[in-house]
């Protein structure tokens, strides 16, 4: 195990976030605060409570998930795409580093950043709405699992993309719609039966539902199913990553 390499890449990636503090921390905090102002403070009071939880408070887990997903993907995809784009990837590929070590360091750094961001947003939310976390262990578990899974997805996107447009394509065309339709802002029980059934094919539903359960003990789907689906998605991403390194896809010729 080349621990020095893992640490070098990890610290390199974390330093990159430090240089782009405005983009990586301040901007998501501002945009999340705006959601709270619009949906929580302006629209929220006109909404009925959902399962005994005020709409503003109901929003919090969904908003954190929304940020967690998008930032895990963008952090991880950019982290690996940029060295490919400028060519500095040669050094990582020629180093005595195993594929697993490369993934652990890049994905680990991206996930760490997302988790920190998630916790900052949680703290920001606490300023707007009264919060309670019924299952702190599960709250953290979902936070970490989601951050890692979607950082892996981001890593895959960063390797697949061969231009900046493709890098934006998946988050924009797939992840954002899935997140908005995944119950971040509502309970899928509010949907007509047909759309509720459709929603069950959306993996984000399980993440948001499970995460919300860890806060308020209410969920759209069974918590065990949520955990299982999240893990299944994690395994799927791992499988794709291991295929990438086995074949050298987009990394080696």
């Amino acid at each position: 195990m080349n621990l020095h390499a893992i640490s070098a890449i990890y610290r390199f990636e974390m330093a990159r976030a430090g240089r782009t503090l405005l983009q990586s921390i301040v901007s998501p905090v501002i945009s999340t605060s705006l959601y709270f102002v619009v949906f929580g403070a302006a629209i929220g009071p006109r909404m009925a409570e959902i399962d005994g939880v005020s709409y503003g408070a109901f929003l919090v887990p969904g908003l954190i998930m929304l940020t967690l997903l998008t930032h895990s993907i963008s952090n991880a995809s950019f982290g690996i795409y940029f060295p490919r784009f400028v060519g500095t990837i040669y050094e990582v590929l020629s180093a005595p580093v195993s594929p697993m070590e490369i993934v652990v360091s890049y994905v680990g750094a991206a996930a760490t950043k997302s988790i920190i961001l998630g916790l900052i947003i949680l703290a920001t939310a606490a300023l707007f709405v009264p919060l309670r976390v019924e299952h702190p262990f599960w709250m953290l578990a979902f936070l970490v699992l989601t951050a890692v899974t979607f950082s892996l997805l981001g890593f895959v996107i960063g390797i697949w993309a061969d231009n900046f447009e493709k890098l934006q394509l998946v988050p924009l065309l797939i992840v954002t719609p899935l997140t908005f339709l995944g119950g971040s802002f509502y309970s899928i029980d509010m949907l007509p039966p047909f759309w509720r059934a459709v929603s069950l094919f959306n993996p984000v539903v399980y993440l948001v539902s499970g995460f919300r359960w860890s806060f308020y003990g209410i969920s759209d789907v069974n918590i065990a199913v949520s955990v299982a689906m999240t893990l299944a998605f994690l395994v799927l991403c791992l499988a794709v990553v291991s295929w990438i390194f086995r074949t050298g896809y987009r990394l080696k010729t």
Partner: protein
Amino acid sequence: MPTIHGHDAAVAEAEPDAASGKPEKTVETARADAILPRMQPILSITNLSKTYASGFEALKGIDLEIRRGEIFALLGPNGAGKTTLISIVCGLVTPSTGTVRVDGHDIIADYRAARSIIGLVPQELTTDSFETVWATVSFSRGLFGKPANPAYIEKVLKDLSLWDKRNAKIMTLSGGMKRRVLIAKALAHEPRLLFLDEPTAGVDVELRRDMWNVVRTLRDTGVTVILTTHYIEEAEEMADRIGVINRGELVLVEEKDELMRKLGRKELTLHLQVPLEALPPGLDGYALQLSEDGTELTYVYDTQGERTGITTLLQDLSGAGIRFRDLQTRQSSLEEIFVSLVRNAR
């Protein structure tokens, strides 16, 4: 660039039965010859081929051994396969067939051991623009599995005249400085085999000289250096041995001095005291050329030949009453050798 030898050397070489025989061979390389063959090569390449997905055959059955501590220049025109060869050894390109061992370690089965010995300075100036010099060089050391060693990094940066720039962001550096940063990165983990892919492409003359000195200093510390170049001058100036690659095949691997001696032709130029209008008839057999102004005589001879004919030429000239005030020999440059090799391979 032609090599100009002084008078003494020219005269010594002119004697066909002179005891020295190989005046170009330095004491150093002679000593290395005596020691090196007994040691395991630092790099050994066997039957290495690479066919890209497009069907392009970049390398065709390359066999090559690199001796410990030498500077080996891989020469070849653009697209000859130089970079592919280096990329395979460094793990950036997957070989189609063949094996590569670095200090006895297979580059695929035992990639960790193999790669930690190698340093690579790529052809392109690919750097992390926003990083500082210090951070990027330290990063490289960690990446190659070595614990932090600020004293060593300091030494590398000082050796490469980068110490003053250690806190500068790479994007603020000139092209030549960036090239040095890439060398520093490649040296950060104390490699024993260093690849320099076109180290002086697009670098001005002064910096090129500096770079050569850096490479020589490295060799003196025991690092084996393999450089690719299409500047013949560079190979001629630096290399102990030269490999010529063309269209994916190694056309030739030879000691530089040997190569120059074998394939080199020499020209003897005589500067006359009194201009001649025409060559005296007695000198027809030498195929001499008289310059237009009649002040210079040029004689071409083969250093490999049994007799260079210089002694008799000089006697005959003196017999014909031709006196000269200076003489000069010039060896054909590696460039001329290279061009004729590559042309013959076509």
